[in-house]
């Protein structure tokens, strides 16, 4: 097995630099410049993995990013291991470890291979059809199906690597550094454009750079030598940035592209520390030149998937670029001239060619003549009908094609071989073009889709535009560049081009066989094991849309996204359905072109940088006093302050009791605050709140409810009149930004005549809220100059005052139902005011409380929390808050919707209080509420929105929304839980102090 198939020195391989690596536990050697695939082939290893469904042995098929088969698991360690890496793209480095995927116990002996024998009973849609019944067995099937699904293993530990994002703005982006891309980049740079050239490979020059034949010449030099000089020249431009190992993943509208730049994947692990592994480039280009080349097509015949079967162009690349022979007994199978280029490369290096099988009968080009001159047998008008060799191809059978190409005729001939190169012509890589919104057209003569209409300022050049021969590419490029870049001249005006390539091709999507199709396995999608047979079955079963056939057969749904076989699938569908190829369209090409790591997508936004978080000016105090925090919008809010090992329940019970018995203190700085000024400020508030504002006296506060135009409650809060034309509005913590946005919207677009100015001041003030029967005593110590008598400073009023020399606004407002004060002070004094209150409150056992206690206290009073007790389907009437809706006002946002036929229904869900029969039983928030458990199906009347054990009432209390709940007072309802039913009584949502005595206590 271990044989050295390195044939001849290649200038791309450094044979003085030997590298050892491990594949499936065995150590092998390669050279600097090798990919994992080329190094394995040099060691005569073709078998690298098993296919997804049938677990068939699979080998290296291509030499690029389109590889469907040679996908491996890279690295062993649990944090860096990476599945589905294409061996054809991995550059080897000292210590690299790779293993085969989708096989057990190993790639040579795989138990799952039984699926191959069972394949006649595993057709397309097998899972859909089989696991339908009996229905209740799904839970049993699921375990096994999930186990066999997916390829490779994910890392189980956090990724240690660093990733980043970078924005790039350029005049011209050139994608692909083949001959077309190099010429385009040079021309753009010469003309002063800020240019970026990217290519997914580590070297420049595409496939031309390793082309050594006398048959392709530019200005009398072999094309690779000519291109070499061009590459040396473009490296000199200061306005041209070149990025290799950079793969464009997505081409969005307005020339916005995403590309992944690989920075350390090719160096040994120990050298990667503290270096950025991959970078996501966010590129905005004024103009884009796509030069992504073309992908060689395979041919579709029985058993076309064995290890040892490669694309003909891949064999050429392994020979010329890596100096590796893919086999010792090579056969080429083609329908066009490309395979003869490969044959010449092999012949030049002294690699044996057994025969060439050509679908075409009449062929005549200089390339073919040279092959014939060297006594290589060409079977003209023949096709391969079968192959054999389980883990490596060892023989092919060929037969003659009928005139119409529909049948095979004559007798079968066998040819033994260890490598088969296949070439079905070329498919332009139009993936990025279509991603950007471009429309394709179908060219009948050689059966390819090529770009038609460009959706943005871009062009496609070279073979991705359907120009496949050297003379076509070079002669078209000059005029295209001149027009696109708006320049007069290029360096490439009068190139002398010599190309022996003849474009003739005999395109047969599914090659005929001597067997009936049911007995064959002509693979169209290698990775997902979709065969031509499956596609035909899908059509027989009635599928017509290619998008449906794709999903039913899973053609093109692997990690390679069907880069090789999608065209054949389309061809077979249109032939079978009798429709014209161009009219079917294609399946949608979606980003990314090749898979991206999650690390690249996320960049630096990990850990504490995952999202912005906002801290109040008093945050440090909460941290120091061991608060647990809760995320509210982007804010970190103190949730509760556990003492001496308390759990949340105990802490909240203690805090709630202390607030009502003596004093509590809350950091309310996160509430949204909007400063409203202007001569029409009162009128504006009239229009945005449900209640009336014109008569609110200066120095007074009022609670307001804001609706959407559809009548549903949107936000609430207290607004204070600071002056004749000056208000400060508070909003909910989470709603601040959207409320400001909505108010601005109405001001700018509906009522531009109003003289009103809105300013967000949320971050400018800290708010300390002190509540409880002793709050007055505490706050009056902190602010000794202020008269706190009820006459001077009643509930729902505000005072401008000072603490020492610092100005502050004090509001006497309450969300707990207790006598309470909110001190607003410039943010940077927040913490000192908080500490002063704590100091003054010491003798009253002032207790800091968090959001959880705040929620409990307000629930005792039946105050709603927008977003918890409401969900954008609740009107104020549904909330039993009719009192806040002005009947007199002519209009306000949402008013008209309050008497639509739907909003006046009696059986809408309405907010009610719920008391459990057993006062110790606390309901679960979100639990369903029903009246009749025996009815089938059980009618859901609503759900529990807030639920607590109240330490002040010594019983369980809850709020809920119940259909028609307003008229159910005192009625018994049921909360069905998993193991029990809980009986509840519908009650008034105000559980404590309905007369508001405590406010003035």
């Amino acid at each position, binding site marked *: 097995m271990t044989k050295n198939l390195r044939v001849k020195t290649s200038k791309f391989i450094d044979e003085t630099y030997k590298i050892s690596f491990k594949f499936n536990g065995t150590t092998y050697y390669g050279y600097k410049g090798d990919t994992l695939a080329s190094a394995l082939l040099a060691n005569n290893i073709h078998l690298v993995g098993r296919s997804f469904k049938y677990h068939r042995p699979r080998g290296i098929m291509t030499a690029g990013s389109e590889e469907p088969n040679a996908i491996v698991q890279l690295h062993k360690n649990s944090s860096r291991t990476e599945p589905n890496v294409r061996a054809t793209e991995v550059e080897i480095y000292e210590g690299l470890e790779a293993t085969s995927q989708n096989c057990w116990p190993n790639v040579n002996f795989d138990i799952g291979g039984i699926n191959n024998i069972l394949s006649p009973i595993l057709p397309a849609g097998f899972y859909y059809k089989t696991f339908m019944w009996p229905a209740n067995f799904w839970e049993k099937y699921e375990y096994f199906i999930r186990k066999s699904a997916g390829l490779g293993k994910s890392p189980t530990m956090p990724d240690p690597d660093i990733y980043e994002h970078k924005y790039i703005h350029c005049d011209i982006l050139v994608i692909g550094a083949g001959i077309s891309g190099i010429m385009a980049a040079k021309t753009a740079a010469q003309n002063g454009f800020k240019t970026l050239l990217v290519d997914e490979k580590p070297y420049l020059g595409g496939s031309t750079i390793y082309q050594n034949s006398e048959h392709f010449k530019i200005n009398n030099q072999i094309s690779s030598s000519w291109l070499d000089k061009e590459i040396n020249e473009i490296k000199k431009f200061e306005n041209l940035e070149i990025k290799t190992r950079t793969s464009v993943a997505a081409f*969005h*509208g*307005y020339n*916005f592209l995403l590309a992944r730049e690989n920075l350390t994947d090719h160096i040994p692990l120990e050298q990667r520390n503290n270096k950025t592994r991959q970078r996501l480039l966010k590129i*905005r280009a004024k103009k884009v030149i796509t030069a992504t080349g073309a992908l060689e097509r395979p041919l579709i015949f029985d058993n076309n998937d064995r290890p040892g079967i490669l694309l003909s162009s891949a064999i050429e690349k392994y020979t010329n670029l890596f100096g590796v022979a893919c086999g010792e007994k090579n056969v080429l199978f083609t329908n066009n001239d490309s395979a003869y280029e490969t044959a010449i490369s092999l012949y030049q290096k002294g690699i044996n060619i057994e025969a060439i099988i050509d679908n075409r009968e009449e062929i005549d080009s200089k390339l073919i003549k040279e092959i014939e001159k060297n006594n290589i047998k060409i079977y003209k008008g023949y096709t391969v009908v079968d192959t054999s060799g389980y883990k490596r191809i060892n023989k092919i059978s060929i037969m003659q094609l009928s005139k119409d190409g529909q049948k095979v005729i004559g007798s079968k001939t066998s040819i033994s071989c260890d490598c088969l190169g296949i070439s079905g012509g070329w498919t332009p890589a139009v993936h990025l073009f279509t991603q950007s*919104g471009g429309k394709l057209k179908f060219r009948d003569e050689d059966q390819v889709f090529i770009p038609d209409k460009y*959706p943005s300022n871009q062009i496609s050049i070279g073979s991705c535009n359907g120009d496949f021969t050297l003379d076509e590419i070079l002669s078209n490029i000059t005029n295209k560049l001149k027009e696109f870049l708006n320049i007069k001249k290029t360096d490439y005006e009068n190139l002398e081009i010599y190309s022996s390539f003849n474009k003739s091709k005999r395109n047969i999507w599914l090659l005929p066989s001597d067997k009936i199709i049911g007995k064959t396995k002509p693979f169209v999608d290698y990775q997902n094991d979709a065969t031509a047979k499956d596609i035909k079955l899908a059509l027989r079963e009635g599928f017509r849309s290619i998008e449906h056939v794709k999903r039913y057969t899973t053609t093109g749904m692997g990690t390679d996204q069907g880069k090789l076989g999608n065209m054949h699938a389309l061809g077979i569908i249109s032939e079978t359905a009798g429709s014209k190829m161009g009219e079917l369209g294609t399946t949608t090409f979606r980003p990314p072109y090749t898979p991206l790591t999650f690390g690249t997508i996320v960049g630096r936004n990990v850990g504490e940088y995952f999202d912005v978080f906002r801290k109040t000016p008093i945050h440090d105090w909460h941290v120091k006093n061991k608060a647990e925090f809760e995320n509210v919008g982007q804010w970190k809010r103190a949730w509760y302050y556990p003492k001496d090992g308390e759990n949340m329940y105990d802490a909240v019970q203690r805090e709630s009791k202390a607030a009502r018995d003596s004093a509590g203190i809350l950091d309310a700085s996160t509430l949204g605050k909007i400063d409203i000024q202007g001569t029409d400020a009162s009128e504006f508030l009239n229009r945005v709140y449900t209640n009336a504002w014109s008569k609110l006296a200066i120095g007074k506060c009022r609670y307001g409810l804001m609706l959407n*135009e*559809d009548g549903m409650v949107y936000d609430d809060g207290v607004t204070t009149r600071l002056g004749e034309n000056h208000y400060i509005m508070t909003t909910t913590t989470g709603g601040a930004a959207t409320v400001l*946005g909505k108010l*601005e*919207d109405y001001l*700018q*677009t*509906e009522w*531009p005549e109003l003289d009103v100015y809105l300013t967000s001041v949320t971050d400018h003030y800290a708010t300390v809220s002190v509540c409880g029967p002793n709050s007055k005593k505490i706050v009056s110590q902190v602010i000794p100059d202020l008269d706190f008598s009820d006459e001077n400073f009643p509930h729902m009023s505000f005072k401008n005052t000072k603490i020492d020399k610092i100005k502050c606004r004090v509001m006497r407002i309450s969300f707990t139902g207790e006598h309470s004060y909110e001190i607003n002070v410039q943010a940077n004094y927040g913490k000192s005011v908080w500490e002063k209150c704590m100091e003054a409150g010491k003798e009253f056992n002032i207790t800091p409380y968090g959001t959880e206690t705040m929620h409990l206290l307000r629930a005792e009073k039946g105050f709603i929390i927008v977003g918890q007790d409401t969900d954008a389907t609740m009107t104020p009437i549904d909330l039993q808050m009719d009192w806040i809706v002005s009947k007199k006002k*002519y*209009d306000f946002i949402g*008013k*008209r*919707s309050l008497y*639509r*036929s739907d909003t006046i229904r009696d059986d809408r869900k309405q907010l009610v209080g719920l008391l459990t029969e057993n006062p110790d039983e606390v309901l679960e928030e979100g639990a369903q509420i029903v009246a009749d458990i025996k009815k089938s199906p059980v009618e859901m009347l609503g759900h529990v929105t807030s639920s607590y054990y109240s330490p002040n009432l010594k019983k369980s209390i809850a709020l809920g929304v119940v259909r028609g709940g307003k008229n159910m007072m005192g009625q018994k309802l049921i909360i069905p839980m998993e193991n029990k039913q809980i009986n509840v009584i519908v009650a008034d949502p105000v559980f404590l102090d309905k007369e508001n005595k405590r406010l003035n206590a």
Partner: protein
Amino acid sequence: MFLINCPYCGEREQSEFKAGGEAHIIRPKQPTELSDDQWAEYLFMRKNIKGIQFERWVHTHGCRKWFNVVRDTSNDIIKAVYKMGEKPPIK
């Protein structure tokens, strides 16, 4: 991602903006005098055009100003941008 030419700030990335739905829907001056059907027409009914569409955008992470955009929804090309209250420059 679009490039949007804010009439107040100039060309900026789409991520700085927020879309606000169909433009030129005027809030009725006297909603209370409308029937349920007329109110529903204003409240719920929006066009879903393939082709030229007039829509509202706001420069949320910029000047916070609302303005109108004429966009071809079939290819996302922005044909025109104009201020609130101005007449559409194209039909």
